[in-house]
């Protein structure tokens, strides 16, 4: 134990654990010169080049990436090039497509009579009985408008007193979001918004979801989780969860009264929304670490429920990724870091709210900057082969030392190998008994 202690201590010192990295010629290209990105590239001694040059590592915006992959561009990547997006990431990040994919995934599993797709009857808030998936009920009931309007009305009638949240599919950072608690309000909105229910007149579609009106509160305030998930491959699925996520708090006490329904400072946790509230604090930015959330929950609620919550969160992430894995263009040149937004309700059940394919790399506080610097650093270590030069022929199995603050969520290839090894063993065992 003495040696253990010493090892632990020797790992403790220093702010950012930055072992010297062998300088190798990697040409990088980026179209957003965020400081957390640039300082990481510089520390690795990489060389910046333009888009038309011979780059190895491209940190691109989703738009740039789409252009690059488009048929018109005709760009063909070589074996030593990687880029930070999958061509059709929107299957996961667009609110309507995410819902569609998850619904399809559930149906598929149900058809295969998978135990994961088990259903059970539950009592809805309105007192009526409905059926829900036992293990795959991790997104709030959601419909795409205008397409699913009739289905929505049917669901709405089952529990007319619940609140619903409307979000435009293509927008982010809390823009265009509002809450409704009466069908008449939705109708009024649709009239005022110049008939968005006629797709030919308006391109914009919305999703409407049951609003989680019983969020877990800490210090009386609502929060959501922002977790970072790195995917290096969709088939086989290989995904990692970053340990240093955070909670984003509303600056105002949570209040469900009807008068506060329009006060977005109460309901939305987006930093871009909260920043405009009078009580926004620049030192902590309303952010608390996930480690401290775990400490608080273990201290006040106990260990078993806390463990259950965190494993439910991992479950949710893995199955949301599996839901899109069949439709994703699994280009070996790609990796992607997703920002998962999750709300925890007062029963400590996590709900997936949305997935962002280009989570903000702007730092709002000092701790935020340190965390995002580590995120990028660890991400580069995981996606690059041990020699540090991008190579698509590499099997994308980094050694655990390269993980940094990432935990392996799932590696289907490894699982498959293990399974084969174990069935092989049991087969042999069987034989010897004979």
């Amino acid at each position: 134990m003495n040696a253990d202690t010493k090892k632990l201590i020797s790992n403790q010192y220093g702010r950012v654990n930055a072992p010297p990295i062998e300088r190798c010629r990697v040409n990088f290209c980026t179209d957003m010169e965020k400081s957390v990105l640039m300082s990481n590239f510089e520390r690795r001694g990489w060389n910046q080049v333009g888009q038309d040059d011979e780059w190895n590592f491209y940190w691109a915006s989703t738009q740039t990436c789409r252009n690059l992959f488009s048929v018109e561009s005709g760009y063909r990547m070589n074996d030593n090039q990687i880029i930070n997006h999958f061509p059709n990431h929107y299957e996961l990040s667009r609110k309507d497509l995410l819902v569609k994919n998850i619904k399809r995934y559930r149906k598929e599993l149900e058809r295969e009579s998978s135990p994961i797709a088990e259903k059970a009857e539950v009592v809805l808030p309105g007192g009526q009985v409905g059926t829900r998936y036992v293990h795959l009920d991790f997104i709030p009931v959601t419909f795409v408008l205008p397409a699913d309007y009739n289905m929505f009305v049917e669901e709405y009638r089952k529990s007319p007193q619940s609140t619903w949240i409307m979000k435009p599919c293509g927008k982010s950072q809390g823009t265009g979001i509002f809450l409704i608690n009466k069908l008449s309000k939705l109708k009024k909105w649709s009239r005022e918004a110049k008939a968005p229910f006629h797709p030919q007149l308006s391109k914009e579609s919305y999703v409407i979801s049951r609003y989680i009106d019983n969020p877990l509160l800490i210090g009386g305030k609502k929060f959501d989780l922002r977790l970072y998930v790195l995917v290096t491959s969709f088939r086989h699925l290989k995904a990692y969860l970053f340990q240093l996520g955070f909670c984003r708090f509303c600056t105002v006490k949570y209040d469900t009264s009807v008068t506060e329904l329009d006060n977005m400072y109460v309901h939305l946790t987006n930093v871009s929304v909260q920043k405009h509230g009078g009580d926004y604090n620049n030192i902590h930015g309303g952010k608390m670490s996930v480690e401290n959330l775990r400490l608080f929950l273990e201290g006040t609620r106990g260990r078993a429920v806390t463990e259950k919550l965190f494993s439910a969160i991992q479950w949710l992430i893995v199955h949301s990724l599996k839901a899109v894995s069949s439709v994703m263009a699994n280009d070996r040149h790609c990796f992607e870091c997703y920002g998962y937004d999750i709300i925890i309700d007062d029963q400590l059940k996590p709900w997936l709210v949305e997935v962002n394919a280009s989570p903000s790399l702007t730092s709002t506080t000092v701790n935020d900057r340190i965390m995002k610097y580590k995120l990028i650093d660890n991400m580069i270590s995981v996606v690059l082969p041990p020699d540090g030069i991008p190579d698509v022929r590499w099997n994308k199995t980094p050694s655990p030392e390269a993980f940094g603050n990432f935990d392996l969520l799932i590696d289907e290839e490894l699982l498959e190998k293990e399974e084969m090894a174990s069935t092989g063993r049991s087969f042999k065992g069987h034989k010897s008994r004979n």
Partner: protein
Amino acid sequence: MESLKEDAIHHTAMKLAEELKNLSIYKSFYSDVQKLVSSPNVKKEDFKHTLQQAMKEKGLDTKLRNTVFHWVRSQNKQNKLDPLTSLSKASAQWEKRIHKSLNSMCSDLETSLAKVRSQSEQEDLSNKWNELSTYNLDLTKYRPVYAPKDFLEVLLTLSGYVPFTKEGEPKWEFAHLPLQVKNLDQLRKIYVEWTNGEPLLGVNPNMPSAVSGFSTIEAERIGLGERVTALGYAPVIQEYLKKGSPQCLRAKLWAQVLGADVGAQQTAYFNRLKKSVLEVDLMIDKLIFKDVQLTASNDDQYFVFEDLLYQVMLCFSRDSDVLQNLRGCIGNPLNVTIKGKQTSADSITVFPPSGIIPFHGFTMYATPFCYLYDDPVQLYFIFRAFYIRYWHKLHYISTHPQGIVSLCLLYERLLEANEPLLWIHFRNININPIRVVFKWIMRAFSGHLPPDQLLLLWDTILGYDCLEILPLLALAILSFRKENIFQVNNIQNVDAVLADLSTISVIPLLQLTLMKPQ
């Protein structure tokens, strides 16, 4: 001989029985026993034996034992006069300065120390009681009465004895105070489990357990801890805490070891404190608001708990039990007239009723408990118990071996004896080594260590029931970072080397310091 001993035990028992009658739990305890006596389990023929058995079954036996334990612990404080007159003089002068500063702040701001709140003000405050961060107060002109830095200046001039120092040389007066402090070997005898290298929580939770049936040390500690907390016997819990508590049991264990469980009586008491906050406006309330704002509200570990902390700190200032418990340890608070009240016996108040004037960072004594209790009443009584048992010693001048003066002295002696090169380096660069660690010790590291590490450290304070771990940790951190300290030669840079403690693993560091063979 036997009979003499029996007499002595009898005498002690009689004295204890008398003392118990004065305690707040006596009434309910007595009625519980009465109920038990009338139950069929207690037989007239074998009264003593059956009653004892019934008390054991009902848990009243443990309750009685714990009550005696807590009573004995509350008795062994120093009631005799401070043997060092220079200290008591300095302490009185310091108190006078604080009172003067309060009074002049009042006259500068044209307000009074105590006044009745108007009806509308009372309503406003009462409506916002659960979100006091939205209670509008103009605090721009309020400044904390003193900061750790100011208090250190006072401590540094304590002995009045100036050795042969040249102008501009640092003064090393602490070392000249005639107080006994322990050396590292003596500390090793206190923290004997640590010194022997026994496995502790906070080193590596996945370390294999030596006890069969448990895979890891963490599982072992949880298993044992569950049994200990179910037993509920305070001395056993104290023993358990020496090796660290798992976070999931800590809230319960801490409340049990301090006798700070919350029942209807405590809730009613808390509500009375709240009522007195609502009725009377003390100038100190503004200082409390200011302190929460300056500390917790700006801290990414604690900002979420801001509203809880306002409640707890305001109520604390009104708690005259604190003054009662600490009489003789904290000086003599002011008596002031409450403006706007008709002259009568209750128009005079002790200012503040708790007798405690907060300094800059006072709230940090309470913030870490927010990770254990989300109910303000429970939070309050734990904080109060900690304060009465430990924290007051960190900001009042006394010769108590656990007091701030002795702890500073202990730190200096430990540093000189165990890190002589560092000691010489500090002399060479003209920095008094206490300056770089004083705020850690005075705040018991709260706000300096991340909460999970801090809670582990405070387990140790409860487990060994002493504060010497604070200077020891200060030494350990300095010694851990000494190579970096050797590189710098002014106070700003030393402070910079020591500013970020977020990567410190408290328990392994302390255990290494205690285990190192000398």
